[in-house]
């Protein structure tokens, strides 16, 4: 009970801070919007995906949603590094609550906040001419949240090990680009050279993006882009399971890391 309350209050504080500072979110949506408008206007026609009946923008849009959530979730660790730098973390660490609940609160806060820019991107669907129903949004939410929780756990885990904001941001930049580019946001994960193929398969983000695309495009339309693992075509639920397992491992490590810092 006490630990649940701790999770809640730690989560709540991060939401409160986010709300005070909501304009910062502009940073999180500028990049995805830029991609959308560049590729959405004209360029998309010339970059059509051969041998499929699908528009490039329709292909890319769900990927951009995934990318937005992923970027924000990874950056969620920033809040923990701030807490360290400004000393607030001590207040939390000396409180009579378990370190696991502190880690959980941080992860959930980061994940919740990561959903918001993802939702904002969806508002642009009609403007760009992508079909999007309310039902689709409702189906997407849990998938986005799962991706957000898993990636946030990774962000928080890394943040527990970082001593300074500079170090944290450097590591994030290093991770972010490959994770996004090799996750199927911009091109289908098919017919790639062996080493690239390998990287896309070990990238957890690939399994987060695929289900989002499947929900947005529908099963049939997205079939050509599904991930093939060891000769097996991954279903939506198999992708979800991989993201979930990755998330569980990350959050367990984050909890462990939290309990083992002085």
């Amino acid at each position, binding site marked *: 009970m006490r630990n649940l309350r701790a999770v809640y209050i730690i989560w709540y504080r991060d939401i409160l801070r986010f709300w005070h500072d909501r304009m910062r979110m502009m940073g999180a949506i500028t990049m995805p919007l830029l991609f959308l408008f560049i590729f959405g206007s004209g360029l998309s026609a010339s970059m059509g995906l051969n041998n499929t009946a699908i528009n490039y923008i329709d292909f890319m849009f769900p990927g951009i949603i995934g990318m937005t959530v992923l970027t924000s979730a990874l950056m969620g660790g920033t809040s923990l590094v701030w807490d360290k730098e400004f000393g607030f973390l001590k207040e*939390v660490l000396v409180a009579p609550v378990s370190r696991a609940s502190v880690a959980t609160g941080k992860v959930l806060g980061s994940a919740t906040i990561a959903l918001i820019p993802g939702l904002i991107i969806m508002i642009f669907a009609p403007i760009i001419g992508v079909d999007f129903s309310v039902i689709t949004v409702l189906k997407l939410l849990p998938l986005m949240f799962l991706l957000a929780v898993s990636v946030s756990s990774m962000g928080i885990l890394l943040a527990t090990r970082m001593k300074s904001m500079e170090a944290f941001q450097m590591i994030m930049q290093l991770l972010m680009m490959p994770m996004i580019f090799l996750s199927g946001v911009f091109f289908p994960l098919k017919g790639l050279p062996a080493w690239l193929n390998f990287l896309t398969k070990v990238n957890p983000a690939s399994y987060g993006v695929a289900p989002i695309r499947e929900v947005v495009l529908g099963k049939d339309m997205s079939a050509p882009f599904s991930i093939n693992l060891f000769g097996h075509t991954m279903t939506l639920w198999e992708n979800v399971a991989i993201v979930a397992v990755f998330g569980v491992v990350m959050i367990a490590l984050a909890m462990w890391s939290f309990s083992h810092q002085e």
Partner: protein
Amino acid sequence: MTNKAIEVINLVKKYGQLAAVNDISFDVGQGEIFGFLGPNGAGKTTTIKILCTLARPSSGQAAVSGFDVVHQQRQVRESIGLVFQDPSLDEKLSGIQNLRFHAMIYDVPSKVRGQRIEQVLNMVELWDRRNNKVTSYSGGMKRRLELARGLLHNPKVLFLDEPTLGLDPQTRNRIWEYITGLQKREGTTIFLTTHYMDEAEKANRIAIIDNGKIVAIDTPTKLKEMVGKDIITIRTDDNAKAAEEITSRYQLETRADNNELIFEKAGGEEFLPAFIKEFNTEILSISLRRPSLDDVFLKLTGHEIRQEQASGSFKEMAKRFGRNMGH
């Protein structure tokens, strides 16, 4: 376990080769104000960190409220309040939001939460500013808010790590009023560190710590009696001559400090009138003071407490104030 608020036995904390805390033992009774006095780097913060479960001892034992700081961390944390040496507020939130966070995480029952928050905020005179963001607070207000926060959950033992560092004298006095008031009203045990001598005097008992070792523990009065003699400072028109006269006539050692001469004499108050009458060198000014903890520290350690490296203390100040700026 005894009914001591804090018990420490042969405590050691090593950082690599450096023994930040080097085999110290002491205890603090219930309701006592206990001061840890020592220069920068003496090991005060390290001791507090161990007592508050934020660092593990390398060896030795420590218990707070009868709970072991290594094996009963949860119970220790439940019984303590803490004001850290470095800032630890969420400056993006308001004063009251900081306190609400604390009340929730310390499980202050929701029925009394609002009332407790109002009470502690009134005590540190911040109730009117409760809805302002902490960024807009002065250094003294932040410190008072931290103190209020440390008290919010009614801790049995309150740890204050340099609670008045970098504050103006007026705010320092205010904070001391709260501290002594707290001891009287609530019977809270207070463990505080300081490197201000005048502050240490206000504690019931003090431990003098230097280089990770405790060199003396006693009441301020008893400690000063160790030095015993009164300290007389004179200024004359010829200090060299005066020094010679004092040495030859009274067999007392003198020490020059700027343009003054300093010497020690037991029963100084009775000594002075005769001294002035019979002294041959012309005296420009004369003063007598009781020994201070400065003198005790000097006697025990062979160096002055204020002899800390200027760069070190500057850095510490810069850290405190630098953080309060902007962001």
